[in-house]
């Protein structure tokens, strides 16, 4: 019983200490992009794995407006353990939104990863959120509440206070 317990504890400890890695089947190339959220004009690092050494991958950024070439990367390594790590710059004029980074060979092999592009870093602001009028004019979100909502909230707060006092003073 004691030996069984010790064995169980060793297995649990081994599982707890095992670094978390993604288990992948060999064969299809895989890419990961870091960071997954990047500013237009910023850089991403594309990490490719499960590739044949020597394979050349065209890296593209695909979005609603079409596909933009970011460059190429060549897999290095041994046997099927090849891969690449390459850095690419997102064009500064890319519109904010959701994109796909695709790595594809001429033979048709391809891998993809999601990327979210934000406004360029220079546009960062600590200001409150705004909305755009149909005319294109920006204004700060209207947080004013209708009179009915204000009255209801005040009534709810006063009721909570009164009920709270009643409960606290109840013995």
């Amino acid at each position: 019983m004691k030996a069984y317990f010790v064995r169980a504890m060793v297995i649990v400890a081994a599982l707890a200490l095992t670094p978390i890695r993604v288990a992948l089947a060999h064969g299809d190339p895989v890419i990961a992009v870091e960071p997954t959220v990047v500013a237009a004009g910023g850089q991403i690092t594309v990490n490719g794995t499960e590739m044949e050494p020597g394979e050349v991958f065209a890296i593209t950024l695909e979005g609603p407006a079409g596909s933009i070439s970011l460059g190429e990367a060549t897999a290095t390594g041994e046997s099927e353990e090849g891969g690449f790590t390459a850095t690419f710059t997102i064009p500064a004029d890319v519109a904010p939104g959701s994109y796909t980074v695709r790595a594809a060979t001429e033979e048709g092999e391809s891998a993809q990863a999601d990327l979210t592009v934000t406004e360029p870093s220079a546009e960062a602001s600590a200001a409150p959120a705004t909305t755009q009028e149909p005319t294109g004019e920006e204004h700060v979100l209207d947080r004013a509440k209708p009179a009915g909502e204000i009255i209801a909230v005040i009534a709810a707060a006063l009721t909570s206070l009164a009920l709270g006092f009643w409960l606290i003073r109840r013995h």
Partner: protein
Amino acid sequence: MASTIQPAPRSRLGGWVYERLGLQGLAYAVPEHANSLPYLLGGITLTGFIILFITGIYLAQFYHSHPADAHQSVVYLITGAPLGDMVRSIHFWTAQIVTVTVLLHMLRVLFTGAYKRPREINWYVGLGLLAVTLGLVFSGSVLKFDQEGVEALQHNKEAANVIGSLGAWFSAEFSRSVPLLTRLFNGHIMILPLIFGLLIAAHVYLIKQHGISPKVTPDAVSRSTTGDGASRFNVHLLRMLGFGLFVLALALLLSLILPAPLGQPGVAGAEVTKPWWMFVWLFPAEAAWGAQALVIVPAILAVLLALAPILDRSPYMSPARRKVLLIVAGLILVVIVISGVVATLQPVAAHLD
């Protein structure tokens, strides 16, 4: 000694509910001091969490957790969803209040030596609950994905890099099909609440088993108080609920006066904001030692808090008999407060690599 017999409700319906739910079982004896505000802080925090769960369920109906859509979905929540701005603001303000009450609760336990035998395990459960609370606040601050949220996430990723494979959950490689923001949302609404539920069940169970810690007097020693006391638990529960309604009232009024903030859509790679007050005190340490400070400083604090029951082994609860520990704790608290004030007054500085 108080009677443990609860008078039955006068109405037929009340009597039916009372009998069917076995509410007489809640009328067990508890010490009178359990009904004072310092000893109700944990219960007040719990009622705050109930408000957070209810408002959170509503918010989740409108929130979109993809990074490209998250901010716009919060804008819609504010401008388009019925009562969305108000519910979001109640959620925000209750989270702020709950963070204050949970910290005050921890300080009360530390000050009164309520972590001593036989309550050491409950102290560790409480530290777990504190960590979960801060995790919920942090993930909640990221979800809105405005500039402050994006910067918080970037700092978090830098901190995750410091701890290597233990921080793998925050990397893109952990799950190539689900963005980190979506996983943080899952953590905020599923993983952390589940851990919270398990820990709070353990917390309440252990309080029930050992009773509330004895009243602090010059000669008071830590012991179980189960079955002691001139009050009853149902009275304690009603006071807890009463103060919980105060929390709701406060959150409602604050929501009306100061709606929960939302900044511009987050821009990656920029640093133009500061984090919320419960994290801003880490800024000077980060400026001095880099991203590793975001891991090391909280880890040191956690270890020191975990050591409290181990180092302070005397049975006495009076602060006068535990001066060394309380002076050290007080000095650390002062450093944290000063660090927070300095960070708040400093201009925004870039820390990220």
